[in-house]
């Protein structure tokens, strides 16, 4: 429990709520409790094991290109956001000579090609004109490049032309054209300075060189589950990156994360118990591990569902009575909403599972009573339309 007495503003908020009476104070207390759970969850969500944290820190300190690899929902993007912030705050700890770090974020798309990321062309006033891709632009402005969810695009196709550069060598990536000047060759290179930048030769038709400084980094996230179904990264490109595994949160950490997603405290116990059972079943099933992020919206679905339909079942949404178990709000309604919430949150991934994985997962889920056998059967049947 947080302590509003140790901070003036918090105390004044407490006092104002108390002055507005019992109901306002109860609402304040619920909101504050939810906020406290969210604070715990934010901490837990990115609480990496000591070795994973060290691998990330040291990999970024020592390597030009680093990928965080893990199941969906493990907070990889958030980890990189925090990492960039940490490095920016104390770059020297990471062995960087720069005083600050900035990053450009891009999310690859399926249709991406080399032109989009490195050097492309467009037509301006009927003339063919070169266009910087995200990589060249990041180097020009001395920003790290973060590729979020790399397996959304065929990165072999996108970065195939810069494999040599990624291994530390200068490489020609194309020709710069515009209507006002002679074509110039464009090179990607590495600088012996910390800063990245662009140099343009004074000579007519001379080269344009985008040189990444030795403080520059290429970071990415890679979804270990989707990788088998969307785009895999070939060996040639893959070995240019250091791969840091990001495992899903433990079941006990998940419970804390999930608790932050529950707004109605009366439902806290029942929701945490049932949704954690689903998460735990995934954790224990080989090839079905998922991160917490995919499950944290399920309580909101159930809470809304209960409010919208529960009154018909005789449940008083305004009651202050705790909900000891889902039986007190109608077991059938709760079971149906849980199955629905799970399906709409995780179904798109379940639909891609091999049959044997789905079967093992179903056995585990029904064994622990996360959902009933009938509900699981309904979920599996519903996946058919998600595969279309």
């Amino acid at each position, binding site marked *: *429990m*947080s*302590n*509003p*007495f*140790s*901070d*003036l503003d918090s*105390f*004044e908020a*407490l*006092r*104002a*709520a*108390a*002055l507005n*009476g*019992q109901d306002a*104070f109860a609402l304040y*207390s619920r909101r504050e409790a939810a906020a406290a759970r969210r604070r715990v969850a934010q901490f837990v969500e990115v609480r990496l094991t000591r070795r994973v944290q060290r691998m990330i820190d040291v990999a970024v300190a020592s390597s030009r290109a680093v990928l965080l690899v893990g199941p969906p929902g493990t907070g990889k993007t958030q980890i990189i956001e925090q990492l960039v912030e940490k490095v920016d705050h104390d770059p020297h700890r990471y062995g960087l000579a720069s005083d600050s770090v900035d990053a450009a974020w891009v999310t690859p798309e399926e249709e991406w090609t080399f032109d989009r990321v490195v050097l492309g062309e467009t037509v301006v006033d009927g003339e063919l004109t070169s266009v910087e891709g995200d990589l060249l632009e990041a180097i020009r402005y001395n920003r790290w490049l973060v590729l979020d969810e790399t397996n959304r695009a065929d990165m072999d196709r996108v970065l195939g032309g810069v494999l040599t550069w990624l291994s530390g060598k200068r490489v020609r990536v194309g020709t710069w054209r515009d209507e006002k000047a002679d074509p110039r060759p464009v090179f990607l290179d590495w600088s012996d300075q910390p800063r990245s930048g662009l140099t343009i030769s004074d000579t007519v038709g001379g080269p344009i060189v985008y040189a990444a400084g030795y403080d520059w980094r290429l970071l990415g996230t890679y979804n270990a589950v989707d990788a088998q179904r969307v785009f895999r990264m070939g060996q040639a490109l893959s070995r240019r990156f250091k791969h840091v595994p990001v495992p899903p949160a433990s079941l006990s950490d998940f419970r804390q994360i999930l608790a932050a997603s529950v707004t109605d405290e009366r439902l806290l116990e029942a929701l945490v118990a049932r949704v954690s059972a689903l998460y735990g079943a995934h954790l224990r099933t080989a090839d079905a591990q998922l991160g917490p992020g995919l499950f944290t919206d399920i309580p909101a679905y159930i809470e809304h569902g209960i409010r919208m339909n529960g009154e018909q079942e005789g449940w008083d949404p305004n009651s202050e009575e705790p909900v000891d178990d889902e039986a007190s709000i109608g077991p059938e309604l709760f079971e149906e909403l849980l199955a629905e919430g799970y399906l709409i949150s995780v179904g798109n991934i379940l639909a891609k599972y091999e049959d044997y994985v789905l079967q093992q997962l179903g056995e585990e889920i029904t064994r622990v009573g996360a959902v009933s056998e009938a509900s699981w059967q309904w979920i599996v049947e519903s996946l058919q339309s998600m595969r279309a």
Partner: protein
Amino acid sequence: MSDPAVSQLGLDVDRVSDFLLARSGEEAKMLQDSMVDSLASQFPQDRWDLIPSIGEYGPDAHQNLYMVEGQRDFRDWLQAQDVSIQEYKDAVGPVQYSTVSVQLKSLLPQARSNRGWRIRLIGFPSLRTIACGLGSHYQGTQNHNQMGQASALIRSRALAVLDDQRDALERWPSATPAHWEERGLMDSPVLRIGNIDLSSFDGGGGAKLRMVRNTTVKKDLATFFAIRGANEESFTERGAEWIRELHDIAVELGSPKGS
């Protein structure tokens, strides 16, 4: 939770009660420094602000007490005893209350009476009665009843926050009408106001606070989310223990959770 910088022997509670119960403003001012020195042994001034204040009655205050606040039964009794407004004024004396606020510097870097919470000691010289506890403030409060209900809620939250000092706070209720109107601050009947003998009033039940306090004090007392009161003799006996208890509760309340 005891503050290691504090001398457990240095608190002379008589010096505190002498200030709080001084019958005149001049006397209170004279005793003020001695009171602060004594409390500073419990509340080192590098960590705490000690802010004394003396509340003297306004020009028409005694008449208001006689005619309005004291209520009809008391006025009838006074009149039956041939006690005039002026005689009542002389008996009550010029000081309504004297008080000292003790607040954590970490919480209030610059003392402000309309923010936050603090340890409060407040003496009513005419009743030889002292109240102490933890109070907030009445800024934005419509009335004392609203504030009193809020204080009860604030106390419930304080109990939920405390670990080590939870049991201690359990012994300190939040203020109720009994504290700001009636006899809730007196641990035995107060049978004198100055030279007026109250033995025959209300079956010997003694004085009520409303006989000597104005409406601002009523609101002020309603801000106490922890309060106890004592007569002069009881305070001499137990005041030091109470002040140490309030110190320890305040230290834990003022510390961020987990620190």
